[in-house]
């Protein structure tokens, strides 16, 4: 390149993305053991447990271990992951992230807004202090994760019970025009109709003229039946990172998993061991 300055500038544009995106791992399932702390048998057991927990209670509890926080404050990292993964159902905000950093010897339970009533900072803190910490201190990581997840499930039980995932989460039939639609989009559709109708009117006029010129009609029926809607972008407006199809075909780590757009407000507790 003739201008190294230009190249540098372009690279500079990518810098914020590089810094932001590099550290948030890709969600693989309910248990994301990037820190290699859980044995594979315990991991499978946990994943199955968390999957059935979501199926019965709709609460999404996700475990993430990382090798290191690379100097970032635990709380900042944890809320960033929770926001990026959108754990929990939209409008219920019932997600929990259990984050452990191996080298920092730190952990955090990040609680979604909808669960703050049941799983208070205090409860989360006690689970860390009394259930997980002693096991981690004794280097019984499998036991710590299993006991911790059970305690978290027990603590949240009762809230949102027997409430299946909503269609916006991907389950159930897709209903066109269900849910919110931005007003500009409605307007766009309306405009689309006008354009289409005017085009149709024009083509019909042309068609009539063609016929009048005693040329054979070319498959354009006079009634001009026209079916279907203008294209409407997928069921969910960019919430979550995988579509239902992708999720169904994704069978690693205890079956498909995706966040539903749950919100977090910084509730939860941190601890170390």
């Amino acid at each position, binding site marked *: 390149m003739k201008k190294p300055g230009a190249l540098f500038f372009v690279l500079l544009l990518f810098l914020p993305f590089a810094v932001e995106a590099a550290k948030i791992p890709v969600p693989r399932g309910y248990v994301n053991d990037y820190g290699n702390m859980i044995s594979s048998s315990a991991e499978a057991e946990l994943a199955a447990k968390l999957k059935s927990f979501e199926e019965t209670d709709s609460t999404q509890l996700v475990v993430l271990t990382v090798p290191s926080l690379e100097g970032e*404050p635990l*709380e900042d990292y944890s*809320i960033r992951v929770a926001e990026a993964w959108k754990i929990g159902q939209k409008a219920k905000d019932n997600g929990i992230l259990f984050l452990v950093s191996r080298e920092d010897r730190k952990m955090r339970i990040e609680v979604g807004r909808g669960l703050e009533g049941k799983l*208070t*900072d*205090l409860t*989360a*803190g*006690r689970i860390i*202090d009394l259930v997980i910490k002693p096991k981690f201190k004794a280097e019984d990581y499998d036991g710590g994760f299993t006991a911790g997840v059970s305690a978290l499930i027990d603590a949240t039980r009762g809230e949102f019970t027997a409430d299946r995932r909503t269609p916006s989460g991907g389950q159930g039939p897709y209903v066109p025009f269900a849910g919110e639609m931005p*007003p*500009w989009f409605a*307007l766009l559709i*309306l*405009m689309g109709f*006008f354009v289409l*109708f*005017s085009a149709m*009117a024009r083509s019909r006029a042309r068609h009539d003229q063609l016929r009048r010129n005693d040329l054979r009609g070319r498959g354009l029926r006079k009634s001009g039946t026209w079916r279907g809607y203008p294209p409407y972008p997928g069921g969910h407006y960019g919430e979550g990172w995988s579509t239902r199809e992708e999720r169904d075909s994704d069978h690693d780590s205890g079956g498909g998993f995706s966040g539903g757009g749950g919100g*977090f*407000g*910084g*509730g*939860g*507790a*941190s601890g*170390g061991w």
Partner: protein
Amino acid sequence: MKKLLRYVASGIILLMLSGCGYNVMQQNEEAVKAAWGDVEATYQRRSDLIPNLVETVKAYAKFEKDTLTQVTEARAKVGTVQMSKDVLDDPKKFEEFQAAQNSMSSALSRLLVVVEKYPDLKANQSFMDLQHQLEGTENRINVARTRYNKTVETFNASIRTFPNNLTNKLLLHLKAKEPFKAAPGADKAPQVTF
């Protein structure tokens, strides 16, 4: 055909109306207000925790009267900063609010440093509980402030850019909002090590 043109024209006018930024600015201002509500709520939550904390510490650390009174005074001061609706539009009031909360933050972190000298207190279950609550609250404050700043950024940008700035000048007369500025030590949760 003429009728059709009229429909199309009215559609375009509607589009232009929404294109002048009137609705966008209103929405952005509401977002700022909602985020501010969260900030207030989290600060309030912290204030509510203080009396319990002070009582618990008092039982174990009788000699730390100074630190305790500082916390109590800071809380009282926070209470006197009247939270009115126009705190968002008034940089001076906003400054005042921020200063009061910051002095509370530093008084609290001093208290938590002092506590380190009392192993009995640190091992006390109710103190540990309080500490979790306090940590959680500080973290919420942090999150709420960050989100508030983001909405302010969006709002301020939306009233400045064309053509929204014209609409604002002629119709809405909205003022730019103040973001939180990081105060030394105030943006972090008090560091507590065991």
